[in-house]
């Protein structure tokens, strides 16, 4: 519990810890979680209509940069969050897998839109019925297309996941089994 009431407006919520004159002590996990969740750099993997709603989310009206996603990186090596927006066809599946494998840990995946979550309106021979057939997904945002407020809600849920994640999760056995299920590594 923090002893002092912080009077100036804060940008991020302080985690639980002990505050004193000139110091603030908290657990390492919470500090790392705070840093990670407020600086998620997304990789916008925009394939179709949801990509235009993403452009609207990044623009000035529903600014996504307020939540720390200031720098969009198109290189998988430099991003934390893979945002898959739009329909993924079976031809695109291997490309998506390659991009996911190239990302460095810790990485999160958000499936934006009905098509990315489950194939959407398009129950056809050429559309992948949900990207969780090829990569593990953390948050699904339904909608066709989802409103920018819904996309931001999805990002906030990812922030919650990132902030509360244990530091050992990426090296643990359940995570390895999850990766094996998708034939990664």
């Amino acid at each position, binding site marked *: 519990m923090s002893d002092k009431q912080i009077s100036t407006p804060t940008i991020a919520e302080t985690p639980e810890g002990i505050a004193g004159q000139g110091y603030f002590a908290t657990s390492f996990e919470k500090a790392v979680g705070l840093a990670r969740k407020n600086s998620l750099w997304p990789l916008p993997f925009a394939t179709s209509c949801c990509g235009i709603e993403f452009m609207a989310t990044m623009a000035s009206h529903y600014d996504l940069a307020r939540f720390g996603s200031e720098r969009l990186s198109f290189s998988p090596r430099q991003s934390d969050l893979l945002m898959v927006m739009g329909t993924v066809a079976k*031809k695109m599946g291997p490309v998506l897998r390659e991009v996911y494998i190239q990302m460095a840990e810790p990485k999160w995946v958000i499936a934006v839109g009905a098509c990315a979550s489950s*194939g959407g309106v398009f*129950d*056809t*021979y*050429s*559309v992948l*019925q949900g990207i969780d057939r090829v990569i593990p997904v953390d948050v699904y945002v339904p909608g066709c297309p989802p409103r920018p407020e819904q996309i931001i809600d999805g990002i906030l849920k990812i922030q919650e996941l990132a902030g509360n994640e244990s530091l050992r999760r990426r090296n643990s056995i359940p995570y390895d089994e999850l990766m094996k299920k998708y034939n990664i590594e």
Partner: protein
Amino acid sequence: MLASQFGNEIEEIKISSDMPVIHVQKDRIPEVLLFLRDTPELQYNFLTTLCGMHYPETSRLGVVYHLHSFVNNHRIRIKTVLSIEHPFLPTITTIWPSANWMERETYDFYGIIFEGHPNLKRILNVDEMTDFPLRKEFPLEDQTREDKDDSMFGR
């Protein structure tokens, strides 16, 4: 307007609802289209679109061309039929380069082989696919799903 053109008689003419329709034998297609493009009175200089058709009752495939003349502001539709066992048709990419991808799409969807096409490969579907999806007997839905309960949908 139609009566003035026919130097080649090897086709049948039928008039349909919105534009004249000409049925042509499949081997004469490039000649007829070149004639339509180059004759000064006609000048159908723009290939609007070309698409394939499947007629399951007579087990034939077909190709439909739409041409547009900017000069006379007139559109025309040209159809041919091919049999399913022998779906070969001469290409028209030498007349209009825009037919390149349109013929690839028709090959991808129906299996119609255009002789003389520079690069007849699949364009929209996965390269390894062996079937031709827009034929009527090919199913629409993804056949690998296990989570659909058919009894709920009356199938």
